[in-house]
Every structure is written in C-alpha cells, then in structure tokens.
C-alpha cells in the first residue's frame, strides 16, 4: 500500500516537472529527481535555491515541491520535535503554493490541501506534548499554527469552538498545577485561560465546574493558610475573604449542576461550598443528593 502511494507521488511529481517553466526547470527538476531518489537533504538545498529565483518564487508548483520535500524531511528527522523548523517550512510552502494559485489551476491542489490538513493535525496533537505549566507556550504556538492552517483550508472550521476547547484545557492544566503547588502565578494563568474559554462559551458544565472549583478551592485555602494563632479581631478578615470567594464559586457550580445534574463531583462540590458558607440546610440537601448518587 505504501509502495503504491510512493509510485503515485513520484508520477505526480514527474507531471509537475513538465509544468515548471523552462528557466527554472533544471533546479526544480533536479530537486524532484533527488527527492525521488530519497536524497532529501540535497533536494532541500536545490529547492531552496530555486525559490530564490524571482520567477520560481511566484510558481505554485515550486512551492508545492518545497512543501513535499520539507514534509518528508520532517517525517524522517524531526517527527518528535514539537517546534520542528522543517514542519513549519513545509506548512509555509504549501500555504504559499495555495495562495499563488489564484486561478485555481494546480491539478494537485487536493494534495496541497491534504498535506496541510495532515500538518494541521500534527500541530494539534503536539499541543498535548508540551501541555504543562513550564512548556505550555509551545502548546499555544502549535495551537495558533493549527488554527492558521485550518482557517485557510477548511471553510467549516469553527475557530471559536477550537479556541474554547484549547483555552479550557490549558486553564484546567494550570488549575491542576495551582492545586499541587499553590503558586499564585499558576492561579493567575488558570483564571485567565478559564475565563477566556468562558467568554466564548459559558454554557458547558466543564467550564462552569472548573471555574467554580477554582474559586471554591481558593476560598478553602484562605482559611487553610490562616495561622492558628490569628488574633480574634483578625478572624473576620479571613472569613470575609473566604466567604466572598465561596460566593463567587457558587453560581458556577450551580450552573454546572443545572447543565449536568448527574455529575457527582459537582454535587459534592456544592455540598462543600454550602458547608463552607455555613448554610447547613443547603449543605444537607446536597450531601443527601451526593450520598444517593454514590449508592448507584
């Protein structure tokens, strides 16, 4: 199957070679020959030289060829590099090829689109590889690259939905980091990304639950970190802060519960928050609900 695919690709490239203008044929053709012979490094040198030429620089076929070569270079040597320069060059080349083909004449346009789609998927999947509190910027770079490609090749691409998905996952990641380290910095990032996701879509149980839990845990932390020797005249200050944060959490968890009443952890969270707010009636109501849900 893979052999057939390669034969098809080489045939396609030979057809491409006949379409390239005479002046630049030699370098681009030579690059195709080298590519066909799997001499990717040499093919890269020649195709890079070819696109320096003003004529080839405007040739969608030359750019497509460059995309093909760089894509294979990426696959052979930088597949594990989330910031692969080869992958970026392949992407830029395929996009350039599409944009130069203003009259829609490229018979291999579908190949270009499929290649870009493939690269977009790889950027998307690499978001996970650096999704931690130290390397997350790399995830966001790949997130932007994925979006940039999809906006070009996929008219149905829902950018807002994609933004929501990624911001909520990045926000949750920071939230988790904050819970483990209690770092103010991570808390700020968690707030920032979760609220960005919330601005896009405030009607999911996921985002409401995560924002609610973030505030709830802060409410708990205020009292948890309070010194046992705190003077009694200072105690109301801590209580005020904690209650204010608990009240901030409450509407999010209520909404999460309305959207998804079967989420046991939200019901547990509501019991916890009402307990923290000294509302014993509501605490007992949600505690009972949680206990009933736990039986099933």
């Amino acid at each position, binding site marked *: 199957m893979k052999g057939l695919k390669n034969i098809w690709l080489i045939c396609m490239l030979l057809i491409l070679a006949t379409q390239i203008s005479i002046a630049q044929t030699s370098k681009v053709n030579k690059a195709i020959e080298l590519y066909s012979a799997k001499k990717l490094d040499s093919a890269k040198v020649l195709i890079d030289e070819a696109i320096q030429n003003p004529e080839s620089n405007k040739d969608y076929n030359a750019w497509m060829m460059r995309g093909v070569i760089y894509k294979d270079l990426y696959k052979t040597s930088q597949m594990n590099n989330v910031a692969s320069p080869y992958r970026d060059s392949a992407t830029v080349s395929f996009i350039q090829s599409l944009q130069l083909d203003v009259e829609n004449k490229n018979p291999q346009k579908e190949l270009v689109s499929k290649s870009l789609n493939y690269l977009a998927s790889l950027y998307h999947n690499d978001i996970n590889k650096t999704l931690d509190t130290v390397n997350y910027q790399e995830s966001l770079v790949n997130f932007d690259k994925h979006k940039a490609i999809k906006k070009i090749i996929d008219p149905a691409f829902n950018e807002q939905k994609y933004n929501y998905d990624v911001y909520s*996952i990045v926000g949750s990641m920071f939230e988790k980091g904050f819970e483990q380290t209690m770092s103010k910095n991570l808390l700020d990032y968690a707030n920032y990304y979760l609220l960005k996701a919330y601005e896009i879509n405030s009607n999911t149980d996921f985002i409401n639950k995560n924002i609610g839990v973030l505030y709830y845990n802060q409410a*708990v932390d205020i009292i948890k970190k309070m010194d046992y020797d705190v003077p*009694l005249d200072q105690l109301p200050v801590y209580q005020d802060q904690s209650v204010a944060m608990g009240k901030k959490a409450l509407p999010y968890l209520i909404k999460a519960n309305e959207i998804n009443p079967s989420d046991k952890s939200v019901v547990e969270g509501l019991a916890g928050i009402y307990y923290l707010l000294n509302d014993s009636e509501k605490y007992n109501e949600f505690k009972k609900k949680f206990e009933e849900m736990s039986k099933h």
Partner: protein
Amino acid sequence: MRKLIFLFIAFITLSADVVERPLLQQKDDMPAKIKAVYIYGFTKYFEWTNNKEGNFTITVLGESVNLLNELGNTVKNKSVGSQRIELKNHQTIGDIEQTSILYITPDKSHLLTEALAKFKGKSVLIITEKQGLAKVGATINFIVEENKQKFELNKVAAQRAGLNVGSGIEKLAASVIN
C-alpha cells in the same frame, strides 16, 4: 489516517483526564478550624477566677471529630498562664470531672441545663452552637450571620459562671447580653 485517528483519540483522552480528576478539597473542615481558633482565642479574653490548678482543660461534649482535630492543631504546645492546655472529649456531663472550657456540640444542646447546674460558679466557660442558647445561659453561643461564623456573648452568664470578661471581646461579639 489511522495515525491521525490515534493521535486525535490521544488528545481527547487527555481532555477527559483533566475533566475527571478530583479537584475539591473536601477533607478540610474550614468552619471547624474557625471555631477552634475562636475557642482558643477566648482564653485571652476571659479570666478564670477558679480552675487555676492543674491543666487548662477544654472539653468537647458530643461527637465532633473535625473540631477536636482542629482544636488539637490550635492548642498544640500552648498554655493559659502557667497551665498547659489539654483536650478532652466526653459524651455525657457525668463523665466530666473538671474543665475550664466546655463546648457543647449542637447535638448535645439539650444538656446545657445540666451543664449549667453542674458547673455553676466553677469558672467554666460554656460554649454552645444553637439558636437562642445565649439567652438561656451559655456564655458564648456560636451563630451564623451572613454566611460567617460569629458568636453571641452573655455577660450575665459569664458572671454567674465565675468568669471575668475582658474588655475587648464585646467588640468582637455579634451581640451582647448584659
């Protein structure tokens, strides 16, 4: 294509992991910590005219594991004057021989009358946690106002109990019975 599907599934799997992780800090009982801090704090605002020998005992009457734990954290290695603080937990008034502070859990509120009779004039600070109990003899009664833990102070009950009330505590109380 198969690889793409696999990679996509990997992404979804990670997202699901984020959603399902345990987030809530359920094990921490913050209202119990606040009560514990209050109870220890009261030792600085009252003077025990009796009960000056031996340890300074804080007794919890009733079941309240979280409060006992938080009190344990609060009074660890602490003293009132020269008296080392110790904690006790009992289920009946009859089991209590001597104490400086008696906290009666809401479930045991019906034992307040018995406690008042047993410890009258013996310098025992009786703390309750049920609506109206300050009016019927508890020196301190925990209440909830605006979602916050506050307390009522009954100065008459304090005097009857043989306690001198410090000046600053009135300002901290939600209400004072003179």
